[in-house]
């Protein structure tokens, strides 16, 4: 029997294990290749600013780390399954060196094969993959033309060649690292319990704290060596997390073991001992899950925050789907006809607001708001009764009562640092017959008129408005809300075609799409990475569960034989898995909170709401994962036949 024929028989017999390993390698290669292809995409390269470039680099570092961890993990899973087999060869008198070489070749050939298949599959699928993702993310506005780049292929090949070489050496080393007896006991023997050292726990907290501090500090401007800083943060947090889990989990489990009242109470003894049995492996898995959760949350959090802040600012600038200045009843009628014909969009609200536009001076303001300049140094006056009516219709609980020449500005782009303070400041309007002076007594952080038609909108008392409208032309501003405004491209074009320049047609759709495509690449990248990492976390949990459930099956069979009910077994499994799930989720959320706080500083925006929503959604997905895991674990353990 040649070594080659033994190896071939092996692959046949262990097909399932080989397949899992092979598939996870191909999966990693396809993901990495797709991402790198995006990075070298001409269009994206053109659109990338400095900031995006940094984020891209950070993301690809994260992806390389992830891919290495993932392949290393699958390899460890795979190798563990084969320890016994290796022991058998050794027993049969095959030389260690030969076995080592066999494992090396096997892994190397599989790796190269996976690389070739992965790149081909990546090239074929990534376009489709990207399109699918865009659909999923709803980022239809991001228009990325996808193509295969040589650079991406080269980079993928280099990264994976290194990873494959390292894992192949691992296989070679396997045979030298273990004694024959250990190879046979691989499945039976528990892992030696590490000591619960206070020192390690403190060191872990210090490392994590250092990582957090660096993350917060980085946003203050130590950008000079971005990659190095990111690497340092990652290293500190990853090592800190590992040490933390190792000491904490040992401490918790030992504590519960010491408490005999708890330990000797029903099935607790089983769960606790199972967890202790695999303590080192558990610490590793907890770390990997915590880090992956943190990365996922950061990716989702970042992209969702960008999306959220963009959407929010467009929504405040465009309270209505469409707005224009009326150019007479004939044209209004045409507009209404077009709106009636639109099948996909129903009109939910139409308002007509009288307004006066005046050129104006703002003598007290150092930094007049941008809307003023956009509207050619004009302000738009609106009577308070109209304001109150409109606000009521839009569900805004706000009423204005003004006296004399008092006025309130509607500044929806208000920023505490840059905007004028308004209160006590004046506007001199060039009305006929005489100029008039308005005194601001305050402002609101929203507007009721769309940006193009409203400009800097100023609410005044009705008497003043009526008086001014005697000698000055009153504009009639039409505002319309329709359903699905974010998709109203066609409708918007039709309206723009019939409305003249003077009407200052303003539509939510165009502004929204503009904002989305500006930050679309970032949003897309975040969503892409987020999805990849959610999948990765899922598969790692799957691997763990598959290995352990299969190994634990015998134990649960024994338990059933001595009279433990299925219900109790499921309860114990649920508790054990909860331990594995809950700890890393908590730490992962904490990690991402600091990372996103740093992002918030960087953006100069409050992103608490989108971050909380991302965390909520992730936790929900995670809880679903939890129940799925408990169920399939339970199924494997209860199955009559061995898997």
């Amino acid at each position, binding site marked *: 029997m040649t070594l080659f024929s033994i190896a071939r028989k092996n692959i046949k017999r262990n097909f399932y294990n080989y397949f899992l390993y092979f598939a996870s390698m191909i999966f990693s290669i396809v993901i990495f290749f797709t991402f790198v292809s995006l990075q070298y995409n001409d269009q994206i390269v053109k659109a990338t600013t400095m900031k995006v470039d940094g984020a891209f680099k950070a993301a690809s570092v994260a992806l390389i780390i992830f891919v290495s961890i993932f392949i290393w993990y699958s390899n460890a899973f795979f190798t563990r399954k084969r320890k016994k087999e290796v022991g058998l060869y050794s027993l049969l008198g095959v030389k260690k060196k030969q076995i080592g070489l066999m494992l090396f070749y096997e892994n190397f050939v599989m790796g190269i094969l996976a690389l070739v298949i992965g790149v081909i599959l990546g090239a074929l699928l990534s376009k489709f993959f990207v399109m699918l993702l865009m659909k999923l993310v709803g980022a239809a506005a991001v228009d990325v033309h996808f193509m295969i780049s040589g650079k991406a292929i080269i980079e993928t090949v280099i990264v994976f060649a290194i990873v494959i070489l390292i894992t192949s050496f691992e296989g070679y080393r396997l045979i030298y690292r273990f004694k024959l007896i250990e190879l046979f006991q691989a499945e039976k*023997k528990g892992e030696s319990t590490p000591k619960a050292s206070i020192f390690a726990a403190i060191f872990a907290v210090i490392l994590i704290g250092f990582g957090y501090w660096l993350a917060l500090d980085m946003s203050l401007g130590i950008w000079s060596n971005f990659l190095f800083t990111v690497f340092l943060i990652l290293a500190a947090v990853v090592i800190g997390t590992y040490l933390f889990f190792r000491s904490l989990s040992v401490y918790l489990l030992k504590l519960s073991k010491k408490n005999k009242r708890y330990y*000797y109470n*029903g099935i*607790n003894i*089983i769960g606790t001992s199972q967890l202790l049995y695999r303590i080192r492996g558990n610490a590793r898995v907890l770390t990997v899950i915590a880090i992956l959760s943190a990365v996922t949350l950061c990716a989702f959090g970042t992209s969702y925050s960008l999306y959220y802040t963009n959407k929010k600012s467009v929504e405040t600038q465009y309270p209505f789907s469409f707005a224009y200045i009326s150019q007479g009843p004939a044209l209004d009628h045409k507009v209404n006809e077009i709106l009636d014909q639109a099948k996909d969009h129903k009109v939910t609200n139409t308002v007509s607001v009288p307004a006066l536009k005046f050129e104006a001076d703002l003598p007290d303001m150092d930094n007049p708001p941008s809307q003023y300049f956009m509207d050619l140094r004009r302000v738009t006056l609106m009577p308070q009764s109209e304001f109150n009516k409109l606000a009521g219709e839009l569900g805004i609980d706000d009423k204005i009562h003004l006296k004399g020449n008092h006025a309130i500005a509607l500044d929806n782009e208000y920023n505490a640092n840059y905007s004028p303070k308004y209160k006590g400041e004046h506007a001199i309007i060039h009305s006929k017959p005489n100029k008039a002076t308005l005194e601001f007594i305050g402002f609101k952080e929203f507007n009721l008129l769309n940006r193009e038609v409203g400009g800097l909108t100023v609410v005044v008392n009705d008497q003043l408005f009526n008086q001014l409208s005697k000698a000055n032309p009153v504009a009639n501003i039409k505002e319309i809300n329709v359903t699905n405004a974010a998709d109203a491209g066609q409708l918007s074009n039709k309206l723009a075609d019939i409305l003249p320049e003077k009407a200052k047609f303003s539509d939510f759709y165009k502004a929204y799409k503009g904002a989305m495509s500006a930050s679309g690449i970032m949003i897309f990248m975040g969503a892409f990475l987020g999805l990849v990492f959610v999948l990765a976390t899922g598969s790692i949990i799957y691997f763990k569960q598959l290995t352990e459930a299969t190994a634990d099956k015998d134990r649960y069979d024994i*338990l059933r*034989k*001595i*009279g433990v009910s299925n219900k*109790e077994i499921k309860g114990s499994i649920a508790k054990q898995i909860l331990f594995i799930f809950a700890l890393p989720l908590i730490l992962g959320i904490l990690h991402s909170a600091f990372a996103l706080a740093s992002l918030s500083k960087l953006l100069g925006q409050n992103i608490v709401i989108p971050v909380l929503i991302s965390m909520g959604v992730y936790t929900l997905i995670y809880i679903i994962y939890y129940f799925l895991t408990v169920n399939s674990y339970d199924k494997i353990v209860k199955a009559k036949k061995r898997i």
Partner: protein
Amino acid sequence: MKVMLEAGNVKKVYGQKGHIYTALKDINLEIKEGEFVGIMGPSGSGKTTLLNILSTIDQATSGSIRIDGNDIGKMKEEQLTSFRREKLGFIFQDYNLLDTLTIEENIVLPLALSKVKAKEIDRRVKEIAGKFGIEDILSKFPYQVSGGQKQRAAASRAIIANPSLIFADEPTGALDSKSATALLQSLSQLNVKDHATIMMVTHDAFAASFCSRVLFIKDGVIFTELVKGETSRQEYFQKILDVLSALGGGKGDLI
């Protein structure tokens, strides 16, 4: 005396279409409370199969089994597990110790599962470990102890909860003669003092001589039985050997 276990026309067929194998053909037996019954027979004759079926771990293809008046064929899975926990004790041929637990934890498992107080558990473990001479290995894991020690641990686990019916499959298979005798004596003490009913599968005529009755099976049917009655153990041992040689296959095949 009350009937503890009753089996009628028990049949067991392994495998599905094509590869079927009838391990038990038509088994009828009755065990009274307080009996110590041995089961002997050549390898592959169906001893383990019979024990598994009688002890509710496996299901018969047909036939009925009543334990302590309960028809176990009619019990639901949940009922069976609690029945097993409360009434039955097991010593398996391949030990069936949990390798995640220390020897001590393995032994206390039935008590822990029945939520006995920790103090009481500690007391019982000490007592039983003393009986079987395994005090020194209590904190070790199964992979760290010898086969005989594992078997004694398994026996300790089987009897710690004072079950009313104990099933033992080759309990002395891995023991040297001294520990085998110790184990058999404690089983027999359990039988005499605590009136526990015991059913033991064995290859070993010496072990079988501790029983009050021995059933011999061959090719899935009960071939004959031998009651100890008033005979001495020495005589009984000799009689068992006689039956075994009559059963064929010779002594060598049986030990």
